[in-house]
């Protein structure tokens, strides 16, 4: 009995190759059925935009690998180049799954989406009765390792995209965003993404203004907010706690002088300005005003880069946790293998011995 993983990921194959071998969610059960047999006793298929992997418990590694390669070729309908694939066995396979589940092997190190995808892949295989003792234990331990890494390390700390950094900062200023008003100045794609992220973190009301009122109205409708006329947004500015600016204007749209007239109506309440436009929309000197915090795209990018660097540094701690858990799992797996190798009578005797030892 051997544990193996065969697959390809963003680190071994470009997207053009990955997409050829991707397995749609609806086909996974049929694929698992197609793979089942004497060679592959248990299997889980993990197919995401960044990886396609088949975890299996097999009797003979080479035979199983050949079967998987030929099945993948057949399923994709195209010959495969084996240099894009990796085959890991035993300890390497366990380590690989632990790293994948903990987000260490992800394109954005430490991201959490992958854990949900691994859980879903396992759930589908488990419900299709394609997992047994080996993969059940392996995946359960992978979830527990991922949880331990998340709670004991800083691997998931600090956002690594500009939009998420802006949202994190807003949350650290205001805490609960439900009573906060967000004003989008310019209805570009980046401000829309940021606004959606703010909404997902519970931002209260949302105002949208744009030179094209149609675009403002449609974006406001899609975000459950309200549109305000471009000519009036400065008059409404005092209502905003968070202002996201991303117009295509070639000049500054919010000056210190204009903001100075707005601030008295805010009674010193903080105003967080996020300027993600290039060239910048907000005059740099507004940050000298009391209670005004301005972050432009470069400021946010620097924080995102620092967070990414910090996650990379944390990898060593995570790998240490993984190493100790791999040893533990390997010990259990070897014990199972030995038990399976015994005759039924010897297995029974071993069971009695254990029972009496535990008493």
């Amino acid at each position, binding site marked *: 009995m051997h544990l193996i993983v065969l697959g390809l990921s963003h680190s071994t194959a470009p997207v053009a190759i990955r997409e050829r071998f991707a397995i749609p969610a609806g086909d996974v059960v049929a694929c698992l059925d197609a793979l089942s047999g004497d060679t592959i006793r248990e299997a889980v298929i993990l197919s995401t935009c960044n990886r396609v992997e088949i975890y299996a418990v097999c009797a003979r590694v080479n035979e199983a690998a050949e079967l998987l390669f030929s099945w993948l070729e057949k399923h994709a309908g195209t010959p495969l180049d084996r240099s894009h694939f990796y085959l890991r066995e035993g300890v390497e396979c366990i380590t690989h799954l632990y790293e994948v589940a903990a987000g260490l092997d992800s394109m954005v190190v430490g991201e959490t989406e992958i854990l949900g995808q691994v859980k879903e892949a396992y759930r589908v295989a488990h419900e299709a009765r394609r997992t047994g003792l080996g993969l059940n234990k392996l995946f359960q331990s992978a979830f527990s390792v991922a949880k331990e890494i998340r709670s004991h390390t*800083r691997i998931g700390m*600090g956002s690594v995209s500009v939009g998420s950094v802006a949202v994190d900062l807003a*949350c*650290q200023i*205001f*805490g609960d965003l439900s009573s906060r008003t967000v004003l989008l100045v310019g209805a570009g794609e980046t401000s829309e993404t940021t606004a959606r992220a703010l909404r997902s973190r519970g931002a209260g009301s949302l105002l949208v203004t744009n030179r094209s009122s149609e675009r403002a109205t449609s974006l406001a409708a899609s975000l459950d907010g309200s549109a305000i006329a471009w000519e009036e947004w400065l008059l409404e500015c005092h209502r905003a706690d968070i202002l996201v600016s991303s117009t295509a204007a070639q000049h500054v749209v919010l000056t210190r002088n204009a903001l100075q007239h707005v601030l008295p109506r805010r009674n*010193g*309440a*903080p105003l967080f300005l996020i300027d993600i436009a290039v060239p910048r929309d907000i005059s740099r000197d507004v940050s000298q005003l*009391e209670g005004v915090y301005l972050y432009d795209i470069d400021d946010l990018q620097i924080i995102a880069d620092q967070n990414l660097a910090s996650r990379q540094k944390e990898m060593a701690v995570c790998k240490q946790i993984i190493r100790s858990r791999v040893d533990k799992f390997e010990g259990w797996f070897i014990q199972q293998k030995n038990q399976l190798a015994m005759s039924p009578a010897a297995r029974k005797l071993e069971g009695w011995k254990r029972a009496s030892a535990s008493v």
Partner: protein
Amino acid sequence: MAVSYHALLWAAIFLYTASLFYAVGRLALARPYHRGAKIAFLLPGFLLHTAYIWERGLSEGRCPVSSLFEAMTFIAWCLVALHLAVSLFAQLNYLTVFYMPIVLIVQLAAMVVPANRPRFVEWQDSSWLGLHASIITLGYAAFGLAGAVALMYLVQERQLRTHRLTTSFMLFPPMLRLENVQAWLVFGGFILFTAGLLSGFFGLHVLKMHGWDPKLSWSIGVWGMYLVFLLGRFLAGMQGRWMAWFSLIGWVFVVSTFWLVNSLSRFHHY
């Protein structure tokens, strides 16, 4: 007996120190602060501290707030009590780093000052003293905790304003929460301080002790200072770092002048 119940206080000091080391360690490693760990250190420490004050009260047969040692022990206890009470309503991770040093300094300093009661306090046997001293000390503790929260706010605000964000920025509580907790602590402290002042005035009247005292002028000054803060915060809606500076400097003023004023006072001389 005295020896045995003093062990309670030392055990409390040990647990408070452990809670401070835990918080500083987590901060230095930039690891999240576990609420359970805070409770594990702080709550037993607080219960031991409470048991000590209780035991001392029983053995002395009065409210143990009249000697300098007792007053300082009580102030340290009030700070921890208020932190635990506030923690029920607002999550304030790492506040321990800001206020626990004050608790430890006050409590350890209390261990070296005379534990006996002053001989010349005319109203030392009055129940008014216990009531007045307990309430007003709780008020001071609330102002002190507000000062610690204000300091935490100022650290956060400075990082945000200067764009020099460290990992602590994401680990500390949100700025607005700190601002609100600070304001409500000042509000609570003000109510207690007012009640403490009134009980003091009433006590002097009942005991027919007349004459002006420098401590009374100072107390009215402190009361007025915090009244200005509250009017600014709740009536004028003032917010931000100047209010935090107000709260912090207010507390520093109270602490730095407290002993001087007491030494000049006829009714509060320890």
